[in-house]
């Protein structure tokens, strides 16, 4: 009997404690409407270690800590699978949690549009965009094509003769960035031959001549260009990029093709995140984006600065989504 009483006292006090804890977390907005994190912030990378999402999340968490822009600890956890869908579902379940966020980029749009995730960007709370990266279209150094127009002219004459390879699945980033630019140049987007190689053989297939064009991120091309193995016909940036090799890459716009594609990367919170928390994070991300320490990080990985606050970010994403959805519809991949 005594034992039971003791146990129930324990349970009650444990419950009371748990209650306090959650109250603490949700009430930190305080009376004056300001939010301060009160415990460790969890940053989810919806992919494995070593990739773009993971690196961005870890560098951001590290610089936040080192510069003390955010005092609370930030820990990065990996929730891998389904091209991000598993990580998104994980964050989606934390509705209203102001101590949780994840890193995202265009796949957050492509994957749901391809019907492979229940959750898309509109199901989350955009906090801030941080960086921009761009796509590049590369061919072998000894290729007959000298610029994008050479390539696209050939594709207009004989679409079967050109194969494009990328790392992502059809309907995802590497494929759609190419389709978008090619369509603007007048190529029939339904006739583009795209193969996907997710085992690391994409660059190999370009180098040995199995396929013609490699659609990828600019960062992936720099070393190969420096070594004289491939040449970049065009990049998807709006303007010339800065940097040693990067500044030599012509944009599609320069070549008279009025289209661009940005591989944006930013942070999102769970659905229903408190207004005060969003204000807090967007201010902190802006501070981070403007810091010297983060400028060094951008330089190290060849990323471009592209800060957007929560509202700007939502508008930008809406516009992107419409355009991509229409394009997917046109090539028969829309859901």
């Amino acid at each position, binding site marked *: 009997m005594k034992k039971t009483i003791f146990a129930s006292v324990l349970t009650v006090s444990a419950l009371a404690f748990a209650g306090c804890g959650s109250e603490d977390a949700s009430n930190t907005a305080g009376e004056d409407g300001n939010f301060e994190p009160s415990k460790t912030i969890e940053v989810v990378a919806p992919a*494995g*270690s*070593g*990739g773009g999402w*993971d*690196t961005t999340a*870890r560098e951001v968490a*590290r610089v936040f800590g080192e510069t003390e822009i955010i005092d609370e600890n930030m820990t990065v*956890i*990996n*929730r*891998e*699978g*389904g*091209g991000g*869908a*598993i990580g998104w*579902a994980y964050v989606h379940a934390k509705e209203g949690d102001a101590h949780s966020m994840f890193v995202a980029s265009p796949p957050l749009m492509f994957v749901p549009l*391809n*019907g*492979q*995730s*229940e959750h898309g960007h509109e199901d989350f709370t955009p906090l801030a965009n941080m960086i921009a990266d761009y796509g590049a279209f590369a061919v072998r150094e000894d290729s007959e094509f000298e610029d994008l127009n050479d390539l696209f002219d050939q594709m207009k004459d004989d679409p*079967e003769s050109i*194969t494009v390879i990328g790392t992502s*699945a*059809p*309907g*995802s980033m590497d494929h759609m960035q190419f389709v978008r630019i090619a369509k603007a140049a007048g190529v029939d987007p339904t006739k583009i*031959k*795209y*193969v*996907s*190689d*997710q*085992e*690391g*053989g994409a*660059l*190999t*297939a370009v*180098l*040995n*001549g*199995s*396929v013609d064009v490699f659609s990828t991120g600019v960062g992936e091309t*720099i*070393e*190969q260009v*420096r*070594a004289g*193995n491939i040449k970049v016909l065009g990049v998807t940036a709006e303007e010339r990029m800065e940097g040693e090799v990067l500044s030599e890459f012509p944009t599609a716009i320069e070549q008279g093709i009025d289209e661009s594609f940005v591989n944006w990367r930013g942070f999102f919170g769970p659905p229903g995140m408190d207004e005060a928390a969003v204000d807090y994070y967007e201010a902190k991300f802006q501070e981070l984006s403007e810091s010297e320490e983060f400028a060094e990080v951008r330089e*190290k*990985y060849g990323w471009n600065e592209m800060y957007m606050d929560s509202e700007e970010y939502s508008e930008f994403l809406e516009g992107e989504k419409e355009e991509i959805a229409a394009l997917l519809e046109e090539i028969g*991949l829309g859901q």
Partner: protein
Amino acid sequence: MDAFQGLLTGFQVALSLEGIMFVLIGVIVGTLIGMMPGLGPISAIAIMIPITYGMDPAPALVMMAGVYYGAVFGGSTSSILLNAPGISGTVATAFDGYPMAQQGKAGKALAIAAISSFIGGTVSVVLLMLLAPALSSVAISFGPPAYFALMFMGLTAISSLSEGSTIKAMIAAVAGFMVVTIGIDPQTGTQRFTFGNVNLFDGFDFLIIALGLFAVAEVCMLILNRKNRSLSDDQKLGSLKLSKADLKEMSGPVSRQSFVGFLLGVLPGAGATIASFISYIFEKRIAKNPEEFGKGSIKGLAAPESSNNAATSGAFVPLLSLGIPGSGTTAVMLGAFLVLGVQPGPLLMTDRPEIFWGIIASMYLGNVFLLILNLPLIPYLAKILSIPRPLLISLVIMFSLIGVYSISFNVFDLYMLLVFGALGFAMRIFSFPAPPFILAFILGGMMEQAFRQSMTISNGSLSIFVDTPLPLSLLLVALISLLVPAFLKWRSNRLAYKQR
């Protein structure tokens, strides 16, 4: 800078006090991680990425490389002792290593594995040093048609991986093919057999299948036959000493498969797992007594063990000289390079010779350390077999669960481990062999993708497989290996008929 001068620079890095220390830490961590069933080098390297922030890149990368080949070295231990593959590259090690341990020759099996690993590792480092720049052209010579032909060649071995019924082997292989199609199809982005379940979108990780079909199924069998109190029939660990005859027997496979493994390692996408299987099949095909394979053959143990370690160094060729990661582990390594501010690729050798050659030189050292560390440990490791059965069974189950959970921290994977454990158990009971299932699973996915990539490139014409010499010759080898045994059988039948 020529290779010799480069290597001198490399040894200056590797033989500095710091270098020696980090190689040692790397190989010790690697061996330990490799020994745990299911825990592989990917997670170990991933954990190290944040730890090495701000470190000098050369020692940091030397350490991570040590973790990688150390894990492949150590992965054989649990394959041999428990039939629970330490890492995916050591699944084939269990085929003959585990029967040997059951026959009371655990000590010998571990010694053979260690020596084969050492030789495979060292031979391939020499090849890596001499040929890395030249081999980068081999690494890129394989396009989709050649990959298809290579995988097809590997698959012709299904019949030789089976004991007894060929039909049962084929059924197992078809089941393996079916399982590998589950998930999002990379060529169309369509979901196949996922039933809309997001956990199935990426398909199954190889380790779930390997641990289910081998470790969990084995545990079920052990529970069923609980007469023996410990795992080994013969409780003795057996002598560690290898006789001259043993050494002679393993010399052939080890010397051949060190080269085969290295070359397969160089090809992006092939890697240690495929290399170990192909080497096993290769040796069984040319052996005078193939019927001994699968029952504790020294050759059958030495071949995959030398091959998987050789493939590990081979995988550094595309990574270091092209910046192409050929496997999951090297992809994480590539991430680690970038975090440390080093760009692997064609210019690494000239831009950062101390890193390029430092890693290569450290591998010599690392392999020596591994041998010195592992040989004296064998008697202690082999004592695992005398752990009382109930305890051992619980440990194997626990480690398998931890290993699977650590792949992507997804509870769903644990249920799948149990499903494949049940499947493996049923296959044992009804004597369906597991190796063809595993082989079809490993090769089938890549084979299908390569086939369909080829078809897109050629606009649907099959001639793409015979137009160029590389895929053509691989397909011819496959054809010969299918026809020759059939012809021999037909001839011996005819002779027997005539004599009657």
